[in-house]
C-alpha cells in the first residue's frame, strides 16, 4: 500500500508563480523516501501540503489513504512532523518542553515519565534537562525539537532537513534511530542536502528543482547512472566562452554549466576526463592562454543535480 500518493501537485503562494509545478510520486508504506533539491526547490512547500499546513493549488494528494484537503485532522493524528522551521517553548526547560508536548499529544500520564526519561537518556539531553530552551544552543534546540516528536507514535514521519546544525555524533545517533523506526514499519519522508545522509538512510530518492521532479529512483540506480562521472572545474583567462563552446560540441554526453564567467570556473560533468583534458590543452595552445584553476573531483550531489537539471534543459 502507498502511504503517500501525489498526482500532478501544483502550489502557488501568490497566485502567479507555481513553486511546486506538477509533482507526481508515491511513497510506499514502510519506505524511507529522500527528497533532495537545492534551496527554493519546493521541498518544504511539498511537506506543507503533505502535512496539511497549506492546501494544494491543484492536483490530488492522498496521505495514509486520505485526501489532504478533506481529512486534515485525521491525517494529522497519525503523522509526526519535524519542520525545517525551529520551534520550542522558549520559557520552559527542555524537560518541561517535552512534558507539554506529551500533554498536547494526549499521552497517558502513566507512560509519559518513562518515555521522556528514556529519550533524554538516549539522545544525551540529561545535562541540559533543566535548562530553559531560551538558554541552550541552536543545535541543542534542534535536538529537542527532534526528540520531542518521538514522544508519540506516528505511522508516517516527515523530516524537513532534520539534521541541520547537529554534531556528527548526534546526527548519526538520530539517523540510526530513524532507520530502526522504519524497520518497525514507520514510513519516513525526509529532505536533505546531504547525499551521504540520503545514502545512509533512504531506500529511494527524488530530485526536485524549480518545483519539478527530475529524477526519482533507488539510491543504487541513481549511483549507477552517475558512476564514473567526474566534475571538472576549469578557469581560464582570455576566452572562457570559446573553451565552453569547444567542450560542449566535442564531449559527447557531458553537461557543461553555462553560468561561468571570468571569476567562476566552467563546470563540466563527464565520464571522459582524458578527452576533456585534451580539449583544454588544445584551447590553451591555440589561444596562448594560461590555466588559472583546474579541479577534478568525484561527482557529488550538487553535481548530480546539475547534471540531472542540465540534461533536462539540453533536451
Amino acid at each position: 500500500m502507498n502511504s503517500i500518493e501525489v498526482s500532478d501537485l501544483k502550489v502557488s503562494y501568490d497566485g502567479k508563480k507555481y513553486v511546486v509545478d506538477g509533482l507526481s510520486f508515491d511513497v510506499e508504506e514502510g519506505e524511507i523516501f529522500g527528497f533532495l533539491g537545492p534551496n527554493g526547490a519546493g521541498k518544504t512547500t511539498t511537506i506543507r501540503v503533505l502535512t496539511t499546513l497549506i492546501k494544494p493549488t491543484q492536483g490530488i494528494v492522498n496521505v495514509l489513504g486520505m485526501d489532504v484537503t478533506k481529512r486534515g485532522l485525521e491525517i494529522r493524528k497519525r503523522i509526526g512532523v519535524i519542520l525545517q522551521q525551529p520551534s520550542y517553548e522558549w520559557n520552559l526547560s527542555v524537560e518541561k518542553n517535552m512534558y507539554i508536548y506529551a500533554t498536547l499529544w494526549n499521552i497517558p500520564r502513566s507512560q509519559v515519565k518513562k518515555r521522556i526519561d528514556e529519550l533524554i537518556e538516549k539522545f544525551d539531553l540529561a545535562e541540559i534537562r533543566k535548562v530553559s530552551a531560551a538558554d541552550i544552543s541552536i543545535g541543542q534546540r534542534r535536538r529537542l525539537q527532534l526528540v520531542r516528536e518521538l514522544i508519540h507514535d506516528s505511522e508516517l514521519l516527515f523530516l524537513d532537513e532534520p539534521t541541520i546544525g547537529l554534531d556528527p555524533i548526534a546526527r548519526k545517533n538520530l539517523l540510526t534511530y530513524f532507520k530502526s523506526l522504519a524497520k518497525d514499519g514507520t514510513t519516513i519522508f525526509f529532505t536533505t542536502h546531504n547525499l551521504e545522509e540520503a545514502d545512509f538512510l533512504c531506500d529511494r530518492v527524488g530530485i526536485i528543482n524549480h518545483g519539478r521532479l527530475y529524477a526519482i529512483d533507488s539510491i543504487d540506480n541513481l549511483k549507477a547512472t552517475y558512476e564514473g562521472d567526474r566534475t571538472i572545474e576549469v578557469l581560464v583567462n582570455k576566452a572562457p566562452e570559446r573553451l565552453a563552446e569547444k567542450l560542449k560540441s566535442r564531449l559527447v554526453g557531458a553537461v557543461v554549466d553555462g553560468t561561468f564567467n571570468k571569476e567562476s570556473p566552467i563546470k563540466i560533468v563527464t565520464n571522459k576526463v582524458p578527452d576533456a583534458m585534451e580539449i583544454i590543452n588544445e584551447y590553451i595552445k591555440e589561444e596562448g592562454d594560461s590555466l588559472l584553476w583546474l579541479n577534478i573531483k568525484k561527482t557529488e550531489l550538487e553535481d548530480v543535480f546539475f547534471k540531472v537539471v542540465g540534461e533536462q534543459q539540453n533536451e
Partner: protein
Amino acid sequence: MNSTIRLTYRIIRSALDVNTISFLILLPVGYLLIMGLMMGSIIHSFNYGGSNLSYVSFIAPGIVADQILMGGSMAGWVLWSDKRTGMLEQIFSMPFSRFQYQLSNLIAMILVTFGGALIMILVAIPFISINITAYGFLLVFIYLVLGTLTFGSIMLALGATVRSNQVFNVISNIMFFVVTFTSSVFYPITSQTPRPLAMAAMLNPLTYVVDGIRGAFLNTSGVADIYYIAVLVTTSAIFMAIASYTYKRIKLSATV
C-alpha cells in the same frame, strides 16, 4: 482530555509565563488603588443614576473592563510569540483545528482576566460601595467572556494579519487608548457628553461591557442588560468569524 482544554493548558503554562500572569492578575488591584486615590482626591463623589457615588466606586467596573482589553491584547501577543517561536506552525501540524487554537487562546485570557477581576473585587470591597449579588456576579462573568471574545478576536485578527512586531504593538497601543477613552470607563456618558464622543461611545463595544459590569456592581441591572448582551454577542460573533478567516490565510513561517 479534550483538545481545546489541552491547548488552553499549554497557553497558560508556556505561552504566558508566571510573571506575565501575576502581572495581569495583580494589575487591576494596583490600578484601582492608584486611580482611586489619585482621582478620588479631586473628584470626591458625583451623582450617578440618581445616587451619590464616589469616583473610586465608579471606576472599579471600568478597571475590570480595561483588564478585558488587556487580556485581549495578550491573546494577540500569544499568537505573535507562537509565530516567532515556530510553535504556531508546529501546532497547526498536530491534531488540532485552527479554530481550537483560537478558542483556547481566548479561554486562557478569560481565565486570567476572571482571576484578576475576582481579586480586585475582593480587595476593593472595603473601599467602594459595591452591592453585588450572585446574579450580578454571573452577569460580570458573562460580560467578561463576551468582552474577551470580542477584543481578543480583534487582536487575534490583527496578530494574524500584521507581519511586524512593531506594527502590532503600535496598533494595539493606539487601539487600547482610543477604545478606553471613547467608552464609559473613566466618565459616564450623559446628555452633557459632547455629541461625537457620545456617538463613539455608542459604537464602542467596551461601553456595553463597562455599563453592564457597573450595573452588576451597583445592583442596578435590569432590562438594559438584554440589549447590552445582545450587542456583545453580535460583536463577538462577528470578530470571531473575522479572526478565523484571517487564521485560514495566515502566512506560515513568519520568522522575525
